């Protein structure tokens, strides 16, 4: 599974989000390749999932990749809850 974490410039906050998403996935026992990038790159990069913040949703409106929106990039409980919800919908988690 390939996951992109996305912010405006693809520098600091998407990398922070990547680190926390990786920690949450490890705790959930899921394997994924997580990459941090900016909106333009994310829209032309094939992936299974995009994780980003509310301020980026409109920039990413033309992508077909499913998007999970997280408000607090360092809150593992929030990240886990939103990811679990998505994975359950996709049938990856029971």
């Amino acid at each position: 599974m390939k996951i992109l974490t996305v912010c405006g410039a693809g520098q600091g906050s998407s990398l922070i989000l990547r680190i926390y998403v990786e920690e949450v996935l490890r705790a959930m026992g899921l394997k994924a390749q997580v990459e941090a990038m900016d909106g333009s790159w994310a829209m032309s990069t094939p992936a299974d999932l995009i994780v980003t913040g509310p301020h980026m949703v409109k920039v990413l409106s033309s992508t077909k990749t499913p998007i999970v929106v997280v408000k607090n990039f360092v809150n593992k409980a929030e990240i886990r809850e939103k990811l679990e919800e998505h994975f359950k919908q996709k049938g990856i988690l029971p």
Partner: protein
Amino acid sequence: MEAIRALAQWLIDNIFNQPALLLGLVAFVGLILQRKPFGEIMMGSLKTAGGFLIMNTGVNTAVAVALKLAPILNKAFGVASEPYVGIGMTKFTEMYGAPVATAMFFGFLINLLLARLTPFKYIYLTGHLMWWMSYLIIAVITATSGLSGAPLIMLTAVLLGLYWTLQPAYTQKYAAKITGSNDIALGHTSALAALAAGWIGGFVGKPEDSAEKLEIPERWAFMKDLLVFSSLLNAAALLIASLAAGPAWVQKNVTGGQNFVVFALLQGITYGAGLTILLAGVRMFIAEIIPAFKGIADKLVPNAKPAVDGPVFWNFAPTSMLLGFFSMTITMFVLMIVLGVTKLWVLIPPMIVLFGTGGTVGVFGNATGGWKGAIIGGIVGALITAAGQMFLIPIIAKTVPDLVYFAGEADWNWWGGLLGAILRLLRL
């Protein structure tokens, strides 16, 4: 013994003075310590070194465009002075890239030590700004003193360690207000501007009148794309300056005969493209280093608070971010014209700063002053950044003034300027 010394000397002469290889080596060691599989170790170290070289390519492209604006503005406003050039970033990175990388690493260790021993439990994790702040401090010290080698690296590392521990502390009052918790801190070089925006916001409005209750037309959301934003604004700046300088003069002296509108548009997009390359390179070279830093920090300072990039805070107030961003951008363009007409300063609006600082001051202003605070925050952010450019550029005129033309944020300008002014007095 002799053989070991010869090997060490060879490493110092051939590897440690090559920043790309040095950073690759740091990633290599970090990945081995994390017991990553062989494939990941190879990929991570090579991408770190490659990212560094990609960044340099982007710098060359973006800075070249930023510097084309200066002569046009000079002509438009009748300012006689030549733009500051110095050594320039390309050459400076070759000369000092290795000390910059080394100081960044030791600065991080000092940040860890201070977080462990003092009540300031902040660990700075904004990787790209760790690189740039290290770069800037080395540029200031080498421009204003005779320090080099180990003393240069140690002084830089100590200053960085102090800055990375204390900057999150001085913005925490407002940062906590934005996120509604005390778990994260701001780790961003717009901090002085954000602090001012938060403080002044309280005088101009009320947090209850939050910008988040407003609706901003969705058709402006495309401006949040950095390539689009920086291309458009750079084209606009070149177009305004060319009209003021006289299209005929510009076509004769700057564009080599190319129509000035086509020139402005093409150069604008070139700038956006250069910036995209630069950011992609930085992204690659911090992608392995920062997670390794965080791993170390988690072990050594378990109760630390991460100090993270400005946009993490934008999520808590996306409309305020847009207000700050537009208000700062407009103010910066007005300042460019006002400072030019009064012949005080040839202001080159640094696009990435309008983006990074603009959004952050909007969110900080809104936390204390609602939508009025967000707008005033943008104005204050522009004033502090522009005045800071006037302060810092003459100080680093000998080394990399071009760095500030395309990316000088408030803390670079003011802390860097202050350091340079002190070093000049000390005559080290």
